[in-house]
């Protein structure tokens, strides 16, 4: 089965239309099959000038057909997959503008269905970056394995190594670190802020701009410093995609030591593990899809 309507408890005040859609699993039966017959309900992502394949005016109100709704979920899934490739959190307003359009009234439902499919079909969890942030990211539920990178071949992966080093450094130094310390450390590894690196390109931009925009790192000026110095902390994506324990294990592996060789960090990581294992307090769950959405894995 594509998806079981897993006990989707629904407040009773919802419209007939929504209930229909909620049955999700059997909507396939209504579909005549091939995609050519499918009316596109939106102009897609930014391709507006190319436009509206068989533009069918989607009704502003009134019942939507199963097919229209299914297509809308499909568009939403594709939009999220495409946007996630850049690793920049996806804004709710962008989703509304580019995909949802006239379907705004059932947005939460569409998002939930899209989240279910993303997880069932692709193994990605859709989670809100931070509570009430109105931006979303996809977290890979599959543990990364080393050969993946090999098979993947191309871009993306080498920078993950550098990111892990910086994350490790931040954690080992008590969760906040001055930028100057980061560069002092990286210089020893042959990575210089102002020098183009064979693999990382412009390391300064990668660390202080790209990783920051992707929300792996927080980067801010330290007050009352002259000349101004900056500091780093973990960003919200890091907490979702990986954990203190995983980063500590990475650091230990690099040093060919045991995580317990750093007792303070080890205790902190353990406490973090325990906190993650506890059920979410109400209101803090950032997950859109399933209740356990916060447990991210890997550094994708």
């Amino acid at each position, binding site marked *: 089965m594509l998806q079981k309507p897993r006990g989707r408890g629904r407040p009773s005040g919802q419209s007939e239309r929504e209930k229909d859609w909620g049955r999700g699993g059997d909507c396939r039966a209504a579909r005549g099959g091939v995609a050519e017959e499918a009316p596109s309900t939106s102009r897609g992502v*930014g391709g507006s000038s190319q436009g509206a394949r068989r533009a069918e005016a989607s009704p502003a109100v009134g019942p939507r057909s199963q097919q229209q709704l299914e297509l809308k979920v499909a568009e939403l899934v594709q939009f999220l997959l495409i946007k996630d*490739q850049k690793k920049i959190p996806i804004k709710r307003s962008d989703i509304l503008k580019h995909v949802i359009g006239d379907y705004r009234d059932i947005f939460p439902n569409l998002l939930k269905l899209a989240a279910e499919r993303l997880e069932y079909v692709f193994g990605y969890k859709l989670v809100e970056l931070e509570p009430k942030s109105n931006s979303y990211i996809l977290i890979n539920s599959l543990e990364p394995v080393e050969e993946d990178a090999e098979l993947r071949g191309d871009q993306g992966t080498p920078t993950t190594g550098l990111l892990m080093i910086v994350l490790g450094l931040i954690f080992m130094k008590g969760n906040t670190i001055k930028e100057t310390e980061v560069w002092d450390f990286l210089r020893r590894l042959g990575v210089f802020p102002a020098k183009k690196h064979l693999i990382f390109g412009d390391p300064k931009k990668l660390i202080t701009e790209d990783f920051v925009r992707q929300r792996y790192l927080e980067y801010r000026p330290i007050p009352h410093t002259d000349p101004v110095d900056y500091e780093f902390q973990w960003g919200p994506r890091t907490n979702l995609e990986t954990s203190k324990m995983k980063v500590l294990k990475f650091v230990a592996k690099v040093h060919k030591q045991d995580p317990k060789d750093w007792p303070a960090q080890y205790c902190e990581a353990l406490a973090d593990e325990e906190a993650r294992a506890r059920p979410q307090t109400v209101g803090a769950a950032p997950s859109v899809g399933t209740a356990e959405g916060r447990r991210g894995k890997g550094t994708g």
Partner: protein
Amino acid sequence: MQGGTRRVGTMTDVHRRFLQLLMTHGVLEEGDVKRLQKHCYKVHDCNAPVEKLEDFINNINSVLESLYIEIKKGVTEDDGRPIYALVNLATTPISKMASDFAENELDLFRKALELIIDSETGFASSTNILNLVDQLKGKKMRKKEAEHVLQKFVQNKWLIEKEGDFTLHSRAILEMEQYIRETHPEAMKICNICHSLLIQGQSCDTCGIRMHLPCVAKYFQASSEPRCPNCNDYWPHEIPEVFDPEKHREAAISRPSKKPSRSRQH
């Protein structure tokens, strides 16, 4: 595809990892797809027998159907190597590129696409493409930048470059066939054998019908005196060889910088 009657398959982590990795590539040759499949089995379930690739992909496609996504199989237009791409059927293919490219860059692609489709050979020269940079929508683009953008299209497997000329990558053909049929119904060319979109191929000097090179190869495989399937006149081109995976593997091993040096025909 048989519409609604088909059984919907089951996804496991093997399938999911396979999809994730296929997605990062966009397009893969058959050998790489098989390697990928084996890898995913190994990661998640060492003991399960590796399903036949065709069944494996059919299973995934049955699930993808409701998402208007499909793993499509095709062959390269020049030498008929089988390839697989994850294509999307719900939104326009240009929108898939929209996250990687700016408006003026997308317009450059559209312009290049038009030139390629309108051309006799299926190739557009970089000069001709670059001459259109002044007409692009969005931010102004200089020729130097446009050259760089064209290279980006090549890297992302939307275009192929051969000696300064550009044609569509097989991935783009798989993804964009429907779109091209809708937007360029007059200009697009169809293969007389397989009736799919044709960008590069051979054509009959007498009646003008066209055929993909791999289709030519198969169609004339056994004939000593090739004749046009439409007008029966003598077929005036060199008949390419049918793609042979065995041979290709050997060639790939002895010459790892695989670059099939085929002469261009039309």
